[in-house]
């Protein structure tokens, strides 16, 4: 499947060092977090939003700085949400090609707009 970055450009990048299954515990990866270049977080189905919290926990609670990759099934309509939670690369699902993700980014609408004005939240302001 094509891999894209946060601007929906196709990229080639390293295979993930770790694939986190949905619902899996972070305990195992936390001790070696600093040494991991790519962590993949799997979305079994786009409705399963655990990956959003996994990403936020890795970025904000555990200060993971490497590439965070979304894999599995997610929608172009969720692209901005994934980016806001800290994902940096995306293995696009078979059902939705990179062009659909690029189209989603072209919209002026971004998640958390109302909030962003009221609350200066680093990740969303970025």
């Amino acid at each position, binding site marked *: 499947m094509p891999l894209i970055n946060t601007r929906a450009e196709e990229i080639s990048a390293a295979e993930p060092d770790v694939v986190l299954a949905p619902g899996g515990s972070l305990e195992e990866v936390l001790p070696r977090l600093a040494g991991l270049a790519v962590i993949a977080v799997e979305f079994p189905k786009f409705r399963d*939003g655990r990956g959003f919290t996994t990403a936020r926990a890795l970025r904000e609670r555990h200060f993971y700085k490497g590439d965070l990759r979304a894999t599995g099934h997610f*929608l172009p309509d969720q692209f901005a949400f994934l980016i806001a939670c800290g994902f940096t690369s995306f293995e696009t699902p078979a059902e939705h090609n990179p062009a659909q993700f690029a189209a989603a980014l072209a919209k002026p609408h971004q998640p958390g707009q109302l909030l962003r004005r009221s609350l200066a939240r680093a990740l969303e302001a970025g």
Partner: protein
Amino acid sequence: MRGGIKFSAFRAPVESVGAAALTGSKFAQDFSIQIRCARNLFLAKARAAVGGEFFTGAAFMSKRADLDMALHVITGNRLADGISVWFAGPKGWAELVGQAVGYDEAGLEAALAQANPADAELHVVDIRAVEVTREGGMLFPVAHREQIRARGPSVRADLPAGVWRDGAEPLPPLPSASSSSPFAGIYRYDEYDRDFLRQRATVFGEQVERRRKGELTEDEFKPLRLMNGVYLQLHAYMLRIAIPYGVLSATQLRQLAYVARHYDRGYGHFTTRQNIQFNWLRLEDVPDALAALAEADIHGIQTSGNCIRNTTTDEFAGAAADEIVDPRLYAEIIRQWSTDHPEFTYLPRKFKIAIVGAGHDRAAVRVHDIGIEAYRDAAGAPVFRIFAGGGLGRTPYVAVQLREDLPVPELLRYCEAILRVYNALGRRDNMYKARIKILIREMKPEAFIKMVEDEYASMAAGYCLLTDEMVQAVAARFPVPEFPRQDTGVLKSALLDDRALARWVKQNTHPHKQPGYISAVISLKPVGGIAGDASADEMDVVANLADKYSLGEVRVSHVQNLVLPHVAKDDLPALFKDLVQAGLATDNIGLVTDIIACPGMDYCALATARSIPLAQRIAERLAPKQHEIGTLHVNISGCINACGHHHVGHIGLLGVDKNGEEVYQITLGGAADEKAAIGKIIGPAVPTAKVPDAIEALMEAYLKLRETGERFIDTYRRLGAEPFKGAIYATH
């Protein structure tokens, strides 16, 4: 277009229909008008034929005995407008069950395959077989729900026949374009907020388009439409619009009336969560309806789906004499924080927050996923008591308390901690066990609270901190109305010689914090009416009365009534006169006929029983005695999902299907206030027709047993269920 998808109807040129009906062309519109007329004619005939009653009972059973084997038809809902369609074999899909082809078991499988080719979901969704029986050459579905799908709601014989939406008709200008209403205490949008809503309507329009083109499957599209308030119900799409914390301006109410009149069939339904629902939307009209509402600063965002829903509060917020902290400010902050939240929009299940700021809990916060009680600490600063894990549905729970006095700056951080634990650990394997209330019970409250506290403690110091500056910025956008009027005694003297006025004032008003003012409740529960329904004309009347008497402001209560929050006491007699003239002066607030009822099986795809007709029968039976009986909350749900909040009714009625018959479980002793309790089932379910007898007998028993000044709930708490059980089960 590939495959055999066609739509056919009465005497229609079938071959040309399939393509045209899907294109939105002028021809398609003319055609759709034609078929609507035919459909309404059929519905009228069908109603006359069966007298509005279900096709069931002895006559039906004897018919069944004649059948060699079960007969089925294939049905679905049309993607474009959601109406029920019936498979007519080689002729494609028909709008009338009478035109469907019946299949015996031998032919059913092949027919299902024919009705459901690979591209079927581009045109028809939820394709399935339902059992039917043949009567006088006509086919009738066996299941009540399918009969209602075929015939329309059993409680709306007043719906005008004919076309209800001619897409070619130019619409008049929006009410918001020429509003001269006073802009009262509602949160003031600016262009930034309004653009956000406009964009959402545009984005949803694009999603509808992608769904039609097959870029989104129905499975993918469904959560996206739900997050914009769009459900597929029995007869059409339903659009649920949020009324954030129950506050509306007169202009907004007129805009809702406009949508009811021009996109729907002339009415809307106010719900138990401070939302309004339109029942007859066409999917392709929804983006336009949302765009129209955006111009009046209203939206359907997150009124459904597994996300944080509309935050609800006390309908007298900002007006009530007993208010300690005005909860609207914090409810608006929560709305802004939760709207499109990047982390919490694909939760295990829906998530409901309620906040109250009066000593008395008028928002049922203890039966919400997060409940917040705002009060003031010793220094006078607002603080929050935080509850979580309350809820109704099939496993009702009263919430557990997490914090006693959370300071304002911590509000959103703490909610984030709760939601983070829930999003990570809430069950996703079983939708009936996916709410936070189940997680808390499965983990044990102590362990859950510890995890929330750990998560909260690990947050960076400034993360999601609600600073005083931010609170003030939002507060500045709630204009505080001026209350210049004094009580000059007009009301007092009017009360002396007008008993009807006196009774209405006693029952339908609530004390205001300004001595010259009072809040007036407009009952949407006329005896024999449909709880929470209001016609477009009624909405306009209420909007005009709000302009005239209530600083242009209206409230929607969680018991499905409307409120004029700021009425000068001197004006109350004049307001009452106007309400009487409009037929909106029902004086039953808090009484037995002020029944909460969900839409039930007349509209809802989940319901197992019809709650509206039962509410009507109970109200008719008990109306003569309602003032004698006094305060009594009767709540009716048409299924276990408990939208009618039956668990927290003093008397709760839950409709269940028992071998094809609608019966009701009776619970007693529920309460939604600060003494929140889940009602107890008192015995076997009662047949629907016997429920009014049962409630009447219950009331007779109460009137005999009560002590002076005792409400039913107090008598129940004093004596328990026993004396009432006997009364109920003696009736059948």
